[in-house]
């Protein structure tokens, strides 16, 4: 392989140590590590909140908390899991792997990269601080509106809403900066010879994600800015009494909110095919079809938003448009499913932990997709809307489709990142405990949802008691299973059997040509791709 010399990073070989290394680092691997660590911590914080919710829902009646606190936990759980756990995890992988996969010495804008990360901890503090302030009699806790901030509730809410609005602004700025960095890196930092259609699928998934973020985060920011001015500066954007329109907020929010689902999933759709190809020991099936499908989904993602509030009322032609366009997403998604399955077909498959998570992910995410198709039907949605069926659906999409996908990525790349193999036996235990307890948590929620149990309510009718008990017990099992995940990661970081450079027998791609762990500065001489 011939090489071309690019940036000489000799002058940066010495980096600060201790806390200053992490505060001032511009190294993509360091920043990736910080993103992933932050994500894991926030995953545990957001997860523990929902265990409070499930404890309350263990049986009918109010046991542990008042309804307002219940609502606060639900809203902050969602915001943390989406903005502080899933998105940073995907960004962490992007930071670690995109430069390695495209043969670049670093991200295109390393200082912006550092800045983007360090906006996250203050945002997390803003989101959770109102809980603590309330203990000292300041304010009435965190936002109790759910993660959607719907007015008029959000206009009337306490200081928790203001904290969340500022947090969302910071998180949005961080996401947009990260996205711009990824776009620039992929457009301008690829190794010579690596055309766009030679990029790894993970890079494609992230490129489309980054476009979606730039297209939608500013709209969310605009919406919550207007909410802030409605709350404190006498405007009436969303106040019907003043000539405003609360439904308009729903349009603006979901113009961001629906693409956000794909923002969380597209990076996963990028690396899952890579995992499937590695452990099937055969080339990825339908590379071009997958790339075009990702683009089609990215394009459809921004034109289907109103299916989230069919029941709010809109003209019949609008209902039909949003129904059909939403259902149309299943076409490119079906292409992806076929490609994923065909990649494994007749492969020499082995089932190490990343592959277990990837295969389990296909099945569980498939359930999430199919139940979404049901919800996209306007007539059926009138029944399902605001029920636990929706909660079960989006957890199949975001926990199974998002978080379990991320876990597959963690097990896949952890040996490359740390230089040590993780404990395979414990990894498999983690998979089975997670998969079983996840299903036992959320399948009952489909049933109670179909039977009419509304979401976001701390009390419920007696007939839902058994299913809720099963769901709550399983949720605790799911939660505690994740401690095993943390243990496996810590054990792997501390030591273990040394990983080879290629790590996995079937692994293909530039990142596997480097040592495990890769040197602090990699690809200071870019490879040329033939």
């Amino acid at each position, binding site marked *: 392989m011939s090489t071309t010399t*690019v940036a000489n990073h000799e002058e940066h070989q010495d980096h600060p140590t201790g806390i200053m290394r992490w505060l001032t680092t511009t190294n993509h691997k360091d920043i990736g590590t910080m993103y992933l660590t932050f994500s894991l911590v926030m995953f545990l914080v957001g997860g523990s909140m929902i265990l409070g919710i499930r404890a309350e829902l263990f049986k009918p009646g109010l046991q542990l908390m008042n309804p307002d606190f219940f609502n606060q936990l639900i809203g902050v759980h969602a915001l943390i899991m989406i903005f502080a756990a899933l998105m940073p995890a995907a960004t962490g992988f992007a930071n670690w792997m995109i430069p390695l996969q495209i043969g670049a010495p670093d991200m295109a804008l390393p200082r912006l990269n550092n800045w983007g990360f360090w906006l996250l901890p203050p945002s997390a503090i803003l989101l959770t601080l109102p809980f603590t302030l309330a203990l000292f009699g300041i304010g009435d806790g965190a936002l109790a509106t759910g993660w959607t901030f719907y007015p008029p509730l959000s206009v009337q809410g306490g200081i928790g809403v203001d904290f969340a609005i500022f947090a969302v602004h910071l998180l949005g700025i961080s996401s947009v900066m990260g996205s711009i960095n990824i776009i620039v890196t992929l457009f*301008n*930092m690829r190794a010579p010879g690596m055309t766009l259609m030679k990029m790894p699928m993970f890079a494609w998934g992230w490129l489309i994600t980054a476009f979606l973020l*730039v297209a939608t985060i500013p709209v969310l920011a605009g919406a919550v800015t207007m909410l802030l001015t409605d709350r404190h500066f006498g405007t009436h954007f969303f106040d019907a009494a003043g000539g405003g*329109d609360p439904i308009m907020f729903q349009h603006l929010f979901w113009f961001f909110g629906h693409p956000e689902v794909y923002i969380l999933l597209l990076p996963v759709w990028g690396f899952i095919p890579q995992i499937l190809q590695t452990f099937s020991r055969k080339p990825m099936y339908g590379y071009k079809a997958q790339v075009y499908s990702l683009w089609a989904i990215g394009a459809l993602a921004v034109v289907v938003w109103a299916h989230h509030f069919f029941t709010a009322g809109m003209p019949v032609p609008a209902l039909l448009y949003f129904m059909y366009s939403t259902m149309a997403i299943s076409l490119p998604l079906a292409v992806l499913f076929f490609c994923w399955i065909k990649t494994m077909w007749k492969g020499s498959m082995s089932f190490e932990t990343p592959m277990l998570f990837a295969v389990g992910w296909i099945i569980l995410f498939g359930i999430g997709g199919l139940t979404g198709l049901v919800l996209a039907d306007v007539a059926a949605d009138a029944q399902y809307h605001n029920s636990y069926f929706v909660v079960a659906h989006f957890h199949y999409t975001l926990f199974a489709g998002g978080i379990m996908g991320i876990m597959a990525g963690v097990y896949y790349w952890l040996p490359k990142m740390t230089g040590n193999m993780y404990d395979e036996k414990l990894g498999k235990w983690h998979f089975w405990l997670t998969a079983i307890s996840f299903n036992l948590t959320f399948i009952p929620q489909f049933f109670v949802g179909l039977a009419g149990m509304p979401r976001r309510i701390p009390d419920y009718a007696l007939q839902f008691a058994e299913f809720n008990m099963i769901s709550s017990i399983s949720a605790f099992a799911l939660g505690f299973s994740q401690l095993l995940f943390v243990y496996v990661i810590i054990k792997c970081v501390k030591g273990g059997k040394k990983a080879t450079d290629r790590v996995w027998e079937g692994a293909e791609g530039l990142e596997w040509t480097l040592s495990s762990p890769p040197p602090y500065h990699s690809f200071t001489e870019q490879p040329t791709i033939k």
Partner: protein
Amino acid sequence: MEDKELARRRRNIKIALIFGVIAIGWYVLSMFTIWNL
């Protein structure tokens, strides 16, 4: 620093500025559109 690397860094900043302006413009526009709806 090599000319080639310098040119690449300039191009990095140009692309970043284009998307940055799009993001900020879109933010402002999303707040203006509401008055017409």
